[in-house]
């Protein structure tokens, strides 16, 4: 196991050697740390309303100021990170699992099934993301579950297609034919010969998709269709700030800043991961 450990250490060093990778790691760790230790870092309750403290500008007691209900924005922003990150992780994991299975089936299965899946993927993908989200939220009512369903629906076709294309290419690769000629069955071919070769690039792509997921959650919450108030969410804070943008711009800044930091962090990290581990992917733009 020490070999794997030293490999992991070597990879980490290669990532940190890139300025962008370093920045990405720092930003991501900062945001994750903020979310995990939100209670320790921010003394104030995120949902505690105090009418006396309404619309206070940034100060030492309220690092990012307060909102229209007098809630501490710093605390709300940190707690909002919990929502954003847990939505991102859970729904990305779910999309990956579903996308990989469907992609393998489409790529390795019979031609008609492949055509059917591709048609389905393309149809889902052709709904503009936000429109689809709006429709779904209208139908199911605003909730975190609805947001996650949207994310899965949006991500699965993309992941499925990537896995399917790669599986299709590998299906006729000589090492797969070689395994078949030895008598390897479908399960063995998929598990031993195809999956290890397609999963790596997908994991990197998925890490680069986390900002997109964060954006969907924040966007829906901004429209009032994501988490229910008073749960702290970056999108909701941004909406509060947008309503009062002319007089108290700090609320909008408090909502937008963490979104910018986390999306940049994950994107820089993902880019570096890709450059370090899979330079071929760069080609695909």
């Amino acid at each position, binding site marked *: 196991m020490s070999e794997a450990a030293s490999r992991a250490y070597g990879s980490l060093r290669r990532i940190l050697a890139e300025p962008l990778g370093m920045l990405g790691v720092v930003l991501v760790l900062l945001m994750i740390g903020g979310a995990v230790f939100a209670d320790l870092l921010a003394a104030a309750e995120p949902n505690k309303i105090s009418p006396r403290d309404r619309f206070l500008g940034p100060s030492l007691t309220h690092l990012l100021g307060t909102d229209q209900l007098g809630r501490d924005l710093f605390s709300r922003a940190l707690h909002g990170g919990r929502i954003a990150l847990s939505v991102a992780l859970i729904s990305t994991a779910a999309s990956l699992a579903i996308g990989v299975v469907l992609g393998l089936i489409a790529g390795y299965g019979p031609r008609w099934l492949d055509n059917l899946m591709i048609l389905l993927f393309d149809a889902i993908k052709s709904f503009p993301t936000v429109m689809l989200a709006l429709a779904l939220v209208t139908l199911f009512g605003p909730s975190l579950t609805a947001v996650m369903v949207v994310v899965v629906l949006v991500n699965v076709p993309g992941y499925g297609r990537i896995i399917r294309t790669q599986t299709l290419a590998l299906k006729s*690769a*000589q*090492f*797969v*034919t*070689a*395994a*078949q*000629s*030895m*008598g*390897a*069955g479908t399960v*063995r071919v998929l598990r*031993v*010969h195809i999956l*290890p*070769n397609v999963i790596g690039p997908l994991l990197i792509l998925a890490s680069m998709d986390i900002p997109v997921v964060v954006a969907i959650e924040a966007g829906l919450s901004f429209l009032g269709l994501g988490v229910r108030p008073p749960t702290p969410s970056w999108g909701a804070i941004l909406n509060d700030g947008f309503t009062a943008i002319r007089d108290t711009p700090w609320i909008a800044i408090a909502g937008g800043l963490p979104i910018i930091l986390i999306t940049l962090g994950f994107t820089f990290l993902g880019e570096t991961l890709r450059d370090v581990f899979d330079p071929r992917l760069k080609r695909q733009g």
Partner: protein
Amino acid sequence: MILTVRDIEVTFRVGPLLNRRSILAVAGVSFDVAPGETFALVGESGSGKTTLANAINGLQDTSRGEVTFMGQRVDNSNPGEMKPLRRHMAMMFQDPVGSLSPRMKVGDLVAEPFRIHGIRINLQEETRRLLSLVGLSGDFADRYPHQLSGGQARRVGVARAIALDPKLIIADEPTAGLDVSVQGEVLNLLNDLRERLGLAMIIITHNLHVVHHVADRMAVMYLGRIVEAGETEGMFRAPAHPYTATLLSANPEPDPDKARNRISLPAEVPSLLARPSGCEFHTRCPWVQDRCAMDPPYTANGEMHRIACHYPLAPGARPPAKDRAL
């Protein structure tokens, strides 16, 4: 006979949905392979030799004919029926590195046949034994395919092929992608193993000189048919089909004084979608006569030396002089 191939055809459907046409990639091929014998299939790209190999191995469905391996029909058989027989028939593929799964170590690659067939054995020991049999040290077990040279990767391929003690090995272009100085190593290895293990072998190649040194009998393919088949020695001495003669002359000896006798075929290989009439080689044959464009030549099965030509060549024949000025 360990393998009997009778009159098999492989059809592919190509083209767009509304204009789908079928092409005959293998057009009625018959031959036998005896235990312990090396048989060579020779042809250029598009001759159907690789498709034929896949059909024998059950990786490709046939539309006609019979393939019998160790007394059992194997054409169009389902994977379940075929699996026990696969222990006895091993394949080696063209690309030495590409036929090894890129994320598996050499040790696992060599052990894979045992795992597939659920054979309980000391895998580590067996892997070492096989690697040493093909001339690789045990350290190679921990390497990945991309860390191997072409020749080393080819040896790993051989180790995988002989792992389960097969009766027949089908080797597709075993020297492809290898430098001249390494080609010999692989051919010598195959020759040695064949003698030591008593295997039968089918070698598929476009390089006739490779065939000369390893094969007992050979068949030359053109557009999915065998145009000439017989003892290697005799066919090299006196090729009877014009195409065989051309192929033989196309890979000249490295001798500036002898090299100028090559037979040139300016015309392109016809498309499988538009097979020529009569003898299918007539569009390129330097010895072509009127009859060739009309009647397909007939070959009898089972003769020692088969030639599909109306006018077989006399030994040492040279093509009729033609006008080279254009």
